[in-house]
């Protein structure tokens, strides 16, 4: 087990290095530069370039960046000139993470319940209803979902706050909007794996022993069916917790997702890199945790020997 985790960590460091290198050079290929001021003279541009060290060869810049990175310093943002990337992440990530956690709790709990109900009623009306919910969840673009939720619950019926983040009630709409997609995919996977499990021998055995249907579902089916759901949790947790650009801008939440997407269109090199690194590390970590949990929980997967 320890050896496995160690191996994964080594691979993770390698992955991160490749990722950083690719993104470092890729951002420089983007047309335009970070100095986005229409009233900029050639002199000022030259001054700004030397301020950020762009006048040095790219490979030197890369070396400097890596050196700072080892010290944990992601540098200053080029758009938000007096803020550090570390500072921006530290300030905005808690909001995204908090919202993401709520969204995940909502999505996973309801997703599992829907999946179970739908599998228990295969072919029935309830099943159909659950499938429709699942498809809607994965087929409505989130900018429409967010705007409609905000308009309906926030403006038209005035039930919930419209935007910003000032308390629990403020998180309900954005969390639902973020979580709906995950809810739908969780319920779909859960349904499929419940049905898969239902045809297994041990369920038949239990049934032939006269165990009640409820006990079969609760004790045998769900526990085993939940495993495949865990496999999608790694990337999902990573992406949900680091924020969603669309939802954050609709609900005016000072989260990370917005910075992440906008830094690319701002050509804010240090922000793009910093955000990618943070996100990449987080994603790898989530995948690792999920895999380890999976290994621990499911005796059929013996990762130690892989």
């Amino acid at each position, binding site marked *: 087990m320890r050896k496995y985790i160690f191996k994964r960590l080594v691979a993770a460091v390698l992955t991160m290095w490749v990722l950083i290198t690719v993104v470092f050079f890729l951002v420089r290929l983007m047309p335009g530069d*970070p100095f986005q001021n229409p009233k900029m*003279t050639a002199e000022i541009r030259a*001054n700004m370039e030397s301020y950020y060290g762009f006048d040095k060869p790219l490979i030197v810049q890369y070396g400097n960046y890596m050196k700072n990175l080892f010290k944990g310093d992601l540098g200053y943002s080029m758009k938000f000139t007096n803020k550090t990337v570390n500072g921006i992440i530290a300030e905005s990530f*808690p909001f995204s993470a908090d919202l993401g956690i709520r969204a995940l*709790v909502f999505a996973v709990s309801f997703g599992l319940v829907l999946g179970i109900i739908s599998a228990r009623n295969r072919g029935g009306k309830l099943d159909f209803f659950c499938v429709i919910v699942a498809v809607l969840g994965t087929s409505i673009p989130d900018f429409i979902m967010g705007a409609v939720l905000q308009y309906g619950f926030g403006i038209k019926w005035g039930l919930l706050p419209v935007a*910003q983040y000032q308390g629990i009630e403020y998180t309900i709409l954005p969390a639902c909007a973020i979580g709906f997609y995950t809810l739908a995919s969780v319920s779909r996977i859960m349904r499929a794996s419940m049905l898969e499990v239902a045809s297994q021998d041990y369920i038949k055995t239990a049934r032939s022993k006269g165990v009640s249907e409820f006990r079969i579902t609760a004790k045998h089916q769900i526990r085993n069916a939940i495993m495949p759901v865990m496999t999608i949790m790694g990337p999902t947790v990573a992406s949900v917790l680091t924020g969603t650009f669309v939802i954050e*801008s609709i609900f005016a939440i000072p989260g990370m997702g917005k910075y992440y997407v906008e830094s690319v269109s*701002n050509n804010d090199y240090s922000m793009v890199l910093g955000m990618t690194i943070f996100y990449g590390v987080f994603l790898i970590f989530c995948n690792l945790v999920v895999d380890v949990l999976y290994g621990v929980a499911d005796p059929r997967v013996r990762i130690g020997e892989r």
Partner: protein
Amino acid sequence: MKKRMVAIVMTIAMAASLVAGCGVPKSGNDDGGSGDSGEKVFRYGTRTEPTTLDPTKANCIPDSEIQNGITEGLVRNVGGEVLPGVAKEWEVSEDGLVYTFHLNEDAKWSDGEQIKAQDFVYSWQRLMNPETAAAYAYIGEYIKNGVLVEKGKMDPSELGVAAKDDVTLEVTLEHPTSYFLKMIGVQPQFVPLRQDIVEKYGADFAADSEKNVYSGPFVLTSSKNQKWVFEPNENYWDKDSIKLDRVELSYIQNQETQLAMYENGELDFTELPKVSVEKYKDKAVQYKNGNTDYFYINCDGTNPALKNVNFRLALNYGFDRNTYNQLASEGIGAPSNVFTFRGLKGVDSDDSTYGEESKLESYPLDGDNDKAKEYLAKAEEELGMKASDITVEITTTDNDAAKKQAEVVQELWVKALGINVTINQVTYAEMLQRHRTGEFEIGWGGWVGDYDDPYTYLELFKTDCPYNNSNYSNPKVDELLEASQYETDPKKRQELLVQAEQIVLDEGAVLPQAEREVYYLIDDDVEGLVTYYVGINYDWRYVDIVK
């Protein structure tokens, strides 16, 4: 079984932490808003996120609006009127080149220290110092030796600004600049800075509200979580004129969201989305923020048709600006056939505007198809091409409004002139790059002035101007614009500028479209909000909440 136990324990632990959430600080205050607790609070939102709290590096209108509250320059510019600021009085030499400012001894920093002339010298030198790399440094080129310092060819100490003593500041300019006082009253690059504070924090100066001292009527008490909170500055020399107890500015990107928050009473002021103006027609206040929309026509690019004056004029005459305004912006906006913002102050009286006085002859707002055809025929002959063989490409940015704008122009030109029009969408960063390199045929553009004078618009057509995006060159125009820089008589100066603009319009170097109009909603009990059309949009320093 042991493994399974571990898994269950871990899962429960994780789930518990999920439900508990992590104690995130709230992004705003919960209190009900203005008046509830007797406090006078003004809350509004910005759609563009401010980029910096360092006045020298201020780079966009939201930056300037924040600085307008927390800093004060030599003079104040309140909606176009120049009032004493840190300087209580000043003299201008006869040739208009030397300004001597006498500072108010009572003017204090928020930590109680006196604001001294040296603080201005430090700030202005810092602005022009190449090592600072201030994006907006060009604005200091008016000061003597500004350009040389900026290029690194001269030491910052040789900049034309000097402290005679603690309360006397002498500024020497490159050329007489009639709008100098108005400009330093509104542009944050000209405010004083405390050397000890700036050097103490280095690159982290003004990174958050504590790492700064304030010279303005307000101090920043928080700048966290995309929300900026201002409270009155106890040491401000004129603090009696400040009525508000607090101002809260939030970054709310989405305009519909802002409106919804206003409707719910969570904001006291909001700009209206264009589509909502109709509904709020009775309540909404109209205001022009000085933004003008147009397309640059690359007069020196790769497309031979666009080098042809007659073809450029055909494009301008064949463009129905009223219809454009209906289609592209819901009829919100003032169709414009001139380049300069017409609301700039005129010279004849206090009320008249440049637009009224200039009397430029230009393309009719409804377009003139006969004239367009006439010019097109001439162009066809000169170019030896048929209209249907001519293709022009509009390069525009990826934002929604810009896309719609380009689509409408395309449609109108195709219908009116029978030419082919394609659209190329690029990012804003790439658009600016293409402006610079001239790699476009017809390019998205827009301009807002930095000072209340036509020159801030017209300099775009000077041959050597770094942002002459139309690549337009006419020695006559250069001459007129250059002369205007040295002319001290306002009336004569205006005539020079009008002549220059007339030539530019006669040669169709640009496709003016519309001046932007904003409709905003403001609570009935809010009084004293000042709007302005250069440098900043909203000046809330003197706002009062009346009950």
